[in-house]
């Protein structure tokens, strides 16, 4: 166990060093879709002058077409990091590059999927999927066609004219995923999208997400609480520290394919334990923090 751990650790370190020392001829650097450099975000606590450091000194590269999962104790700033990549808030320090260009605001090159679906309740499933296409000024007819295509992709054919309240949680999340895919972003940012679903629905959606990812070659950053989910979905798992959130370690999940019962693979258990060990101390630290603040 310790052997694997140190190996991964050194591997990661090596890669980072090479990249920073020799950026010009470094292949991974060119391939990086998202580059997060020394990013920090400080909020001011309402009604006081006290600063609240949400994330600090985050360095992370996400390769083009990669599926990266992000785990960390609650309140460690995972969602803040996602908001920063989405361009919904600006970093206090550092910068975020997408395809080498600094993020200055939200855009249709990135799509977000939220835990609470965030579907527009007055729009049908189809009209919800069309929303981003309207923002992109796609003609009406093409909008319809594309929306139908993505509704098919998430397996909801026949539910075009249902309103969100007429759909189950799993179906709503499928619509939300279809909505984010429909305007064809390069990057999909997912904030604990399956956390509110029951175990069975979650597993089937995880499989489906992998299928969609393989089919569409999107770069996916996926936040989760579940270690199993992180190992199952991610090609790499980034583990964050407790607040202020930093990247503690990035672990390569070296499965050749995700066919079959991956969870029964002994390596799955090993990865799982490794991440669990990394998280245990951070969770304890986070709880300690909450106690002192509360």
């Amino acid at each position, binding site marked *: 166990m310790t052997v694997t751990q140190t190996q991964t650790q050194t591997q990661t370190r090596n890669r980072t060093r090479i990249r920073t020392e020799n950026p010009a001829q470094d292949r991974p650097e060119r391939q990086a879709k998202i580059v997060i450099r020394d990013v920090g975000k400080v909020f001011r606590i309402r009604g006081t002058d006290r600063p609240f450091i949400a994330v600090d000194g985050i360095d992370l590269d996400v390769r083009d077409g990669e599926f990266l999962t992000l785990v960390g104790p609650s309140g460690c700033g995972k969602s803040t990091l996602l908001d920063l990549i989405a361009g919904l808030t600006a970093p206090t320090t550092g910068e975020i590059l997408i395809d080498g260009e600094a993020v200055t605001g939200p855009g*249709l090159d*990135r799509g977000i999927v939220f835990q609470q679906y*965030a579907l527009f309740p*007055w729009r049908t499933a189809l009209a919800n999927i069309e929303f981003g296409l309207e923002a992109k000024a796609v003609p009406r007819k093409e909008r319809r066609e594309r929306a139908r295509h993505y509704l098919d992709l998430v397996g909801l054919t026949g539910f075009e004219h249902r*309103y969100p309240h007429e*759909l*189950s949680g799993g*179906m709503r999340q499928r619509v939300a995923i279809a909505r984010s895919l429909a305007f064809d972003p390069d990057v999909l940012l997912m904030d604990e999208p399956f956390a509110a679903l029951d175990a069975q629905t979650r597993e089937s959606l995880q499989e489906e997400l992998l299928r969609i990812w393989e089919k569409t070659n999107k770069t996916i950053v996926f936040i989760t609480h579940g270690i199993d989910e992180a190992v199952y979905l991610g090609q790499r798992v980034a583990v964050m520290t407790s607040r202020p959130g930093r990247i503690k370690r990035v672990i390569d999940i070296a499965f050749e394919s995700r066919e079959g019962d991956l969870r029964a693979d002994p390596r799955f258990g090993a990865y799982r334990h490794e991440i669990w060990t990394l998280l245990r101390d951070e969770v304890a630290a986070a709880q300690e923090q909450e106690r002192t603040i509360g």
Partner: protein
Amino acid sequence: MADTLAAVPAVPATGTPAGTVPAGTATGTPAGTPAVSPRGDVPTADDRATNFFRVAAGVRSSALPRLSLLLRRTAALALLAGLWETLPRLGVVDRVFAPPLSEVLVAWYDLLVGGQLVEHFQASLIRSLSGFALAIALTIPLGLAIGWYRPVADFLSPVLELFRNTSAVALLPVFILIFGLGEPSKIIFVFYACSWPILLNTISGVRTVEPLLVKSARSMGLSPFRLFQKVILPAAVPTIFTGVRLAGAYSILTLLFAEMVGAKAGLGYLIQDAQFSFRIPDMYAGIITISVLGLLFNLLLVTVERRFSTWRTTS
């Protein structure tokens, strides 16, 4: 459906011995009862979903419970009508001041045939609707602006707060001074009274839009204007409509008062005039008319509201 029919006799839930049930009655069983899917296997998510919709659509309804509901709903009304009819006749109440319902209805019919009722009704309706329509046209945009733009809210709030606590009734003499005794003062009066529920609901409708929806729309790069048009406005519609419905009721209630203070036509005038000239049954006829008008108006608005917000969870 064939599976459904076959499944029915196997379940003797109806109390009739299985087999004696004719095939015809089996078709009458409410849909959505069997949990087995048409393929006979474990229901899939989609099967469960369609089943759920079928039940949610309220397919199961029978005539008998409906009748009992109708009885329960009308019992109190019937009792009231009965008391109104009998108490004056028995001498429990003075029939000069409270004539039996039948006499009031006769008076109402005479007013209708004589044409006075239509004339007063029309005068009232025009005033109410004008004030009400004016309130909708002017106040909704104002409320949207206040709810959406902080500076507008900061600028107007103190004035609005002051006026909100000034009763329309207190301002009626002012309206009459400025606009005279004719139609304008009454319409302005109704407008003023109707504006508040619409304004306050519009503001709160805009301000209480689910932040996650705004965030989601912003993440898709919507401009502030598009965000307002495509998210804030549709999300606020149900709340705005609550205000419109309240205003509908106010428009009739307040108009009546204005017509009693100074008018030569209208239902308020009819009621007041009938009382002054001691035509008591006419007075009650006017009151009944105004109640029914209010009821119908509200019913109309509820129907429109339903059309506008089919997407809302109705459980």
